[in-house]
């Protein structure tokens, strides 16, 4: 049903419709409205999950880790410093192959302390072994959560759904919250395993010595890389049930473009405006939204960018001392396969407003 909702509210409603069994979180701006809404649903009897108050993000992540190991569908949400605090658990969840779903309301990292939006938090855990999705708009912030549960639980890997803090979490827009029956149908076939079953005792989280560690890490690496087709397949099923198309790589007016912007996240909307503005001036530009950072969709990016003359990568996170992280990612995907000039730009850090004019001005 289409409603006008705040982004956080839309996410909370959707998560509740996915029927998680255990929710645990610790408050941090701009994630707070999501977990407040879930707590209120719990208080009002509109949900049936166990809401576990945690004394830190580290604890919240550990609580959902334990619940997930015991076979429960789980949810947590965080942001910025909170994600960094739970980083050790984030790696651990991935290593244990637990299907945790987490929202990251993307926010800058201090110092200097700043509560506003960029994506330094998410990009800082890109190597941890989670599937990382980015919402390019309001509707995707809803839809990707449903998809996340499907992927996580069918392949036993954790998924982070990244939504830009404030841009999505604290604004209101028209959005469709899918019918619970449809969500149930989409998620139905999944069976979660309780690996802590007393009738079938197993040891989980073993010490692994040099004789096996490398194989196990490489196995996880291959497993994550090999999920690309599975994720596309699930996106196809999603379209069949909900009627909306989800894409790992979205393209806007790229067909005849010689210059293409690349970005992750909700500023894609502003970038599309900038493309329209540049097109009016006769410039052949287009835009690409990368909706999944891990596993990295090399082939899809190559397909979208291979024959372009110039690629302008819009970074919302930096590898300090090197360059914008997305720039490196795009260069890696295109290395030796594309002659385009790659121009890395860093924009919109710590909530700095990104305007159409600023993006237009990047095309020289």
């Amino acid at each position, binding site marked *: 049903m289409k409603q006008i909702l705040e982004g956080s509210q839309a996410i909370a409603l959707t998560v509740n419709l996915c029927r998680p*069994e*255990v929710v*645990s979180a610790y408050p941090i701006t701009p994630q707070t409205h999501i977990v407040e809404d879930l707590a209120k649903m719990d208080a009002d009897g509109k949900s*049936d*999950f*166990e809401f*576990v*108050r*945690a*004394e*830190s993000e*580290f*604890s*919240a992540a*550990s*609580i*959902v*880790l*334990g*619940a*997930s*190991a*015991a*076979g*429960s569908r*789980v949810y947590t949400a965080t942001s910025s410093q909170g994600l960094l605090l739970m980083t*050790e*658990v984030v790696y*651990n969840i991935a290593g*244990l192959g637990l299907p945790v779903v987490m929202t990251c309301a993307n926010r800058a990292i201090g110092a200097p302390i700043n509560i506003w939006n960029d994506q330094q938090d998410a990009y800082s855990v890109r190597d941890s072994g989670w599937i990382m999705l980015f919402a390019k708009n309001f509707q995707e912030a809803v839809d990707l959560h449903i998809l996340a549960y499907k992927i996580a639980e069918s392949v036993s890997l954790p998924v982070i759904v990244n939504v830009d803090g404030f841009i999505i979490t604290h604004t209101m827009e028209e959005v469709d919250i899918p019918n619970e029956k449809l969500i149930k149908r989409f998620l139905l076939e999944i069976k979660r395993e*309780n*690996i*802590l*079953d*007393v009738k079938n*005792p*197993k*040891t*989980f*989280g*073993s*010490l*692994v*010595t040099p004789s*096996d560690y490398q194989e196990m890490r490489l196995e996880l690496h291959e497993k994550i890389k090999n999920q690309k087709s599975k994720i596309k397949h699930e996106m196809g099923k999603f379209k069949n049930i909900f009627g909306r198309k989800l894409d790992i790589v979205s393209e806007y007016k790229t067909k005849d473009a010689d210059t293409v912007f690349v970005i992750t996240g909700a500023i894609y909307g502003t970038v599309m405006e900038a493309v329209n503005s540049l097109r009016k001036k006769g410039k052949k530009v287009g835009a690409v939204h990368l909706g999944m950072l891990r596993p990295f969709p090399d082939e899809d990016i190559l397909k979208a960018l291979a024959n372009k003359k110039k690629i302008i990568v819009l970074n919302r996170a930096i590898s300090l001392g090197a360059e914008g992280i997305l720039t490196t990612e795009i260069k890696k995907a295109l290395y030796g396969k594309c002659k385009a000039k790659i121009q890395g730009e860093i924009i919109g850090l710590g909530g700095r407003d990104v305007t159409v004019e600023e993006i237009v001005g990047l095309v020289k």
Partner: protein
Amino acid sequence: MKNNPYKNKTLFYPGHTACAGCGQNLTARHIINTLGPNTIVVNATGCLEVTTTKYGESAWGVPYIHSLFENPAAVASGILAAMKFKFKILNLKFKMPNIVVFAGDGATFDIGFGLLSGMFERGDNILYVCFDNEGYQNTGAQASGSSPLGTDTTTTPHGKKSIGALQTKKNMVAFAVSQGAVYVATSTAAYPKDIEAKTIEALKYNGPKYIQILVPCVPGWGIESNKTVEVARLAATTGFYPILEIIEGKITKVLKTSAQKPGIEEYLKLQKRYEHLFENANGKKVIAQLQSICDQNIAAYGLCPTCEEHEVLMQYREINK
């Protein structure tokens, strides 16, 4: 495990890689066998985890999970929440398993302190067992918040300007009581029957339970591998490690010292980590301070054979004001 020769005999199999004379693995075996098969173990990183779970092998006859060093209390809370959901919402019929945390003093007194506090505060029905060997023995005997005054560790070495650890042991028992743990008890590896009795008693209470057990570490403490029990007994009988049971905030049982109780030197001299204290006048002063800790414990918890029970309770309340 196929054709398990230990089936129905023990839930903690031999063949693990702990040192001869390890106080911790000995104690863990008694606890897990008392808890029985309807139990889930959540283990912090440490010697118990390292020696019992080398990939491809396992000493555990019950479901076991290890995540990180500092988070077993929170992982246990998550498992409990999952069980509650299955029980209440899904109406699955099963006997709620015992959820037990096994963690060392590093995980408990130091790095996992905040997470343990969270578990207490939530009132979660979990038995938390701290195997206290008074330092980071798994990484080579560094000092923790549990290392007593004067202990020679690799990060508080004794030397010309130092007598070893300068801090006094953190009072985790008082902390657990103050946080509302329904059942709090201490013991040492010398008293398996006491440990078993306390494990059984703890399970009668719904809520967070904390049992702290002194477990001598052969290499870390520098003791002979056949002295584990003797050292653990002396810790109690000197009054240095008071053996208590505190139910809903009230002391219900203490282990009394004998009329001819041993002095602290008897305990210290068996351990290389205290050897330096016998070498000079500064060390002797520390020994006197450690003796006074024993005397204070004996007075505070009423450990002497003639102390009256009501006296104990009064004194305990004074301490906890």
